């Protein structure tokens, strides 16, 4: 373990995954004790990443698989014109770098949205373990499948839904994921820029802010700085639910 990782703001730095407060959320929870033992030996815990620093770049040979320990990370691709296309946001307990499993190169970029910490598993060791562990394979398949489902939902969001539904879906997704982390699902910080949110949802920055302002006026949410409070959860859920009912019929927004 590096010296840096012990300078933790979160309190005492854990020495094994079982001690980690995110254990229940992390893929490490679902593998066998022996495998965890293995990972405990090679894992670099709580590596600090400063805001705006990259975890990896697109095209780069994969060195590690990372789990967000604290903070948040965005992933993005570059278009042929060199424009950034935001593809996802990663919260504590979520795993990054699986995009490199097939080619051993990262297909996209990952950048910290705030001062964050990650747990790093050397990529080669991870691949070796994958080859010998059916349990780890199973867990990875599940994670990849979940990520695929989310990507499909994003395609739907960007392609077909009106601005309100897109924003509501985004807020609900953040809220749901935070709730899983035992955090208040009705109060969370949006650590990404509004440009990132707009880019991710395929909206202009003006539309994102206008939509959030409208939701605030209707007392569905309250926004203060980066902090969002959900005031009327049923209303927000209903807006997001339209995906399944009328969403497909709605004109592009």
């Amino acid at each position: 373990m590096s010296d840096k990782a012990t300078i933790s703001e979160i309190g005492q730095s854990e020495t094994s995954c079982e001690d980690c407060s995110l254990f229940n959320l992390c893929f490490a929870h679902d593998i066998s004790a022996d495998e965890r033992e293995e990972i405990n030996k090679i894992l670099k815990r709580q590596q600090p990443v400063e805001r705006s620093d990259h975890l990896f770049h697109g095209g780069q040979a994969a060195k590690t698989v990372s789990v967000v320990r604290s903070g948040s990370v965005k992933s993005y691709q570059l278009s042929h014109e060199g424009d950034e296309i935001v593809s996802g946001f990663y919260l504590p307990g979520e795993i990054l770098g699986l995009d490199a499993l097939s080619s051993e190169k990262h297909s996209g970029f990952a950048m910290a949205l705030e001062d964050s910490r990650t747990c790093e598993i050397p990529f080669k060791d991870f691949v070796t373990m994958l080859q010998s562990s059916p349990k780890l394979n199973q867990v990875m398949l599940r994670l990849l499948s979940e990520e695929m489902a989310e990507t499909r939902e994003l395609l739907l969001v960007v392609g077909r839904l009106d601005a309100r539904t897109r924003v509501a879906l985004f807020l609900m997704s953040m809220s749901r994921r935070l709730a899983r982390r035992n955090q208040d699902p009705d109060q969370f910080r949006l650590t990404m820029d509004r440009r990132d949110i707009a880019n991710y949802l395929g909206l202009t920055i003006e539309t994102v802010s206008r939509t959030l302002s409208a939701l605030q006026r209707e007392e569905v949410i309250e926004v203060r700085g980066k902090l969002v409070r959900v005031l009327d959860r049923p209303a927000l859920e209903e807006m997001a639910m339209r995906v399944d009912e009328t969403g497909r019929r709605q004109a592009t927004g």
Partner: protein
Amino acid sequence: MSELIRPTFDVDLIDRYGGEGPRYTSYPTAVQFSERFGPESLLTAIDESNRLPIPADLSLYVHVPFCSSPCFYCGCNRVITRSETAGDEFLDTLAREIALIAPGFDSDRKVRQLHLGGGTPTFLSLEQLSRLMGMLRENFTFAADGELGLEVDPRTVDPAGIKYLYELGFNRISIGVQDLDPAVQTAVNRVQDTAMVSATIGAARAVGFESISVDLIYGLPLQTTAGFAQTVDTVISLKPDRLSLFNYAHLPHLFKGQTRIKTEQLPTPAVKLAIFRNTLNRLLEAGYEFIGMDHFALPGDSMVKARTNGTLVRNFQGYSTHGGLDLVSFGPSAISQIGDSFAQNQRKLPDWRIAIEHEGHPATCRGLTRTTDDRVRADIIERIMCTGQLIYADMERFFQLSFRSYFSDELQRLEALADDGLIEWCTGGFKVTAAGMMYLRAIAKIFDAYLMPHRQQQGRFSRIV
């Protein structure tokens, strides 16, 4: 809608709570600004402010630093000149300052407020003011229903000029009256007869200004209770929508111009108190509501509405009806507040000009970025000053803290104020009483982390009453 509390004035409390205190137009106050905060820090703060989910709309301030003659009481940053070219030269630099700063703001951030202060904004000719407005409108997007105001020296603008200002888009006007007694006016070097003041207010009302505000100052040389009562009665008859009653702070060691005021002509503390008490009572009797500190307004005015429904805020211009805006300020000594950052420009006109014209960067010379502790305390102080009450759960909602343990020292120190009847405890918080309304700053001060007893602050802040 709750009834506004009408303050009572308890002279017995004045020894204990009428001492010095910051006016809390910001927290931390400008005393805490550091020179480590420079032009780069301002530009970073602007960039950060665009990134929020809902970036704040804007309030603009322009400091016009000129006066053609010195009012001796004045503590503002200004240059006394009769130069014909000063105005245009100032606007040339201002144009460059705007060009350095305005493009940093995303274009969907609308200007909801504009205020011109000084100095004397109407030192500028009507053509120059028109040029100034053109510059601002070219570089910022103005909301259709924005509040556009300026300070007017009645000696510099005639009724036709007032109409022209309205046509430029101004809908709020603030008129410096101070005192109508000719003897006092001579002693402070600001002679303007009542007919002139009355004509200015009349013209502003006739052309449709939405809010007309008048400033009075008590504690000026040669003031008497009878003389000031006469001024107050005349002003009441002119029915300004808002009225500010400032306490003259005689600090000649800080403000050179004040050395020309003869100390022996200043009213005694007892006379000052009597003037204040009489004026307070007279204004309340005439139907004015007390907003807080030194501000009064008629019931129909937006400031009374804001005070009643809890949307009143404090900023560098005093009380304001519009919260949640980033303040972008131009001109020498002007202070911007972008998100949690304060940035003050070079105070002196030449230094301000050199930074912009020759060095080509914003003229920021000092400032600070608030810590989380600063933000909590700023919020608490603003609530005390603007709503007269504090509910702890409101703080806990936005800041992750347990109010009673985080502020246990402060709550203990508030006990003495509760015993003296300045505040009363209520469910989950406390309320300022009618007697406490006169001492809002003394109550707010309890939460000021920078006012520890060991710090030397004496003589830097004006008296509370």
